[in-house]
């Protein structure tokens, strides 16, 4: 028998009895970041492939959500800060070792790119829009001419942003559940999948829905593979990682993880998408919404559960 207790008493808010310093803001921020990464990646990808005509919603309409998601995400990050008035120091310091530091810079780069991208499609999507100033029309003409060149950095930064949402957590070796390098790719694919689901909600073109639906199925399969891989890795790991995996295998997050993330968030929507592909009439709103909600719950669970896991001594 081994028992640990604090003789002196210790009950620090948000630290004891178990760590809970990051609340709802962080999972929402990670979700919005992943969603933005997925939307920008797909928009850039189909522009580079020269399929703007066939993929109207992907390239032109869905990217309008990105600046909104990114600005809202940054606002969530701001809400999470405890010393709010000092937030600007994120941008007066360059700390490449700190994932949060370079992540803040990635957001500072990708937000303007996404604004320029949606700006270049503004008058095409909203024909009544007027830019008011002449220099904005000149800038718009420049952006429209150079879309292909904007698409490349956009795709690259989208991948960095998507991976960053995972690395933000996986860089903490004190939290065994997060401390796995698969978390970066896992959050990236999950972000791509939520992005594809979002396009399914917006698109009215049957052909486009079919292509994005197939792509989404691929993302879901890869995501399931990564999750299996993550749990296998934990079970083959050290004691603290085995007990981290136990949170999902009988521990307090078992039901929420398997029911809401795996079954309702991945398997069931995948099944509906397969049924749709082989010809059954399935309203795609259903799987798309489930994927979005599942992605959000997945991030909530990872942030909550990770904070509980720790080294024991």
């Amino acid at each position, binding site marked *: *028998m*081994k*028992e*640990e*207790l*604090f*003789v*002196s*008493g*210790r*009950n*620090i*808010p*948000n*630290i*004891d009895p178990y*760590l809970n*310093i*990051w609340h709802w803001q962080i999972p929402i921020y990670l979700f919005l970041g992943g969603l933005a990464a997925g939307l920008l990646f797909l928009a850039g990808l189909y522009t580079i492939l020269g399929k703007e005509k066939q993929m109207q919603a992907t390239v032109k309409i869905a990217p309008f959500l990105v600046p909104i998601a990114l600005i809202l995400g940054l606002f969530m*990050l701001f809400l*999470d*800060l*405890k*010393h*709010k008035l*000092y*937030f600007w*120091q*994120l941008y*007066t*310091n360059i*700390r490449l*070792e*700190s*994932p*949060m*530091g370079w992540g*803040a810079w990635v957001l500072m780069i990708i937000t303007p790119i996404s604004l320029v991208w949606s700006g270049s499609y503004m008058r095409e999507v909203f024909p009544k829009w007027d830019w008011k100033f002449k220099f904005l029309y000149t800038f718009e003409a420049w952006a429209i001419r150079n879309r292909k060149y904007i698409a490349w950095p956009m795709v690259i930064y989208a991948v960095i942003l998507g991976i960053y949402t995972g690395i933000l957590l996986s*860089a*903490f*070796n*004190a*939290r065994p559940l997060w401390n796995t390098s698969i978390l970066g790719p896992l959050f990236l694919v999950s972000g791509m999948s939520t992005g594809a689901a979002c396009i399914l909600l917006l698109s009215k073109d049957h052909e486009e829905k079919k292509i994005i639906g197939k792509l989404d199925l691929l993302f879901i399969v890869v995501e399931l593979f990564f999750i299996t891989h993550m749990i296998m890795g934990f079970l083959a790991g*050290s004691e603290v990682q085995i007990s981290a995996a136990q949170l999902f295998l009988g521990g307090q997050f078992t039901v929420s993880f398997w029911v809401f993330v795996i079954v309702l968030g991945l398997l069931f929507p995948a099944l509906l998408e397969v049924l749709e592909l082989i010809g059954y009439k399935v309203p795609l709103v259903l799987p798309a919404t489930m994927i979005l909600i599942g992605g959000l719950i997945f991030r909530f669970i990872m942030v909550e559960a990770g*904070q509980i896991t*720790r*080294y*024991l*001594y």
Partner: protein
Amino acid sequence: MRYAMAIDTRKCVGCSDCVVACQTENNVPIGYCRDWVSETVIGTYPNVNIELRSERCNHCDNAPCVRCCPTGASHFEEGGIVTVTHHKCIGCGACIQSCPYEARYSHPDGYVDKCTFCLHRVRQGELPACVSVCPTKCMHFGDIDDPNSDIVNVLKNRKFKSLAPEAGTKPQIFYLL
């Protein structure tokens, strides 16, 4: 120069004087603490083994909190002491997540706070508050790069351990067994 601490788990009686001294010396807000005493009981009576440890920030050589700080507020001072510059801290909580010892907390004023090895006292040539009040003299503080220091002498003659060395942080608080 490398400051470190050695704490004798056989002499410690768990009186918590170190905790109160720290709270007084550093004006720690009520309900918070920078150091604490934990007790590990192994076995059942009559075959029991009790280990008492006064714990605090380990002022790690490879400090994850310094690495992950986005603004450089968490940094190394002289002798490897890890401190937080309050006006540079944005309160993002990354360092709290990164600490395997849960030695940091969010101060009610917003910034992150922690043990400083009483840097203000050490600079004056005094011992940290916790060490100076210990009634059983179970704590040794000093420079482990100095071969004549008390702490080097103690570590040479006793078996010792550090906490969660597998976390790779190279902690600098040693518990004499």
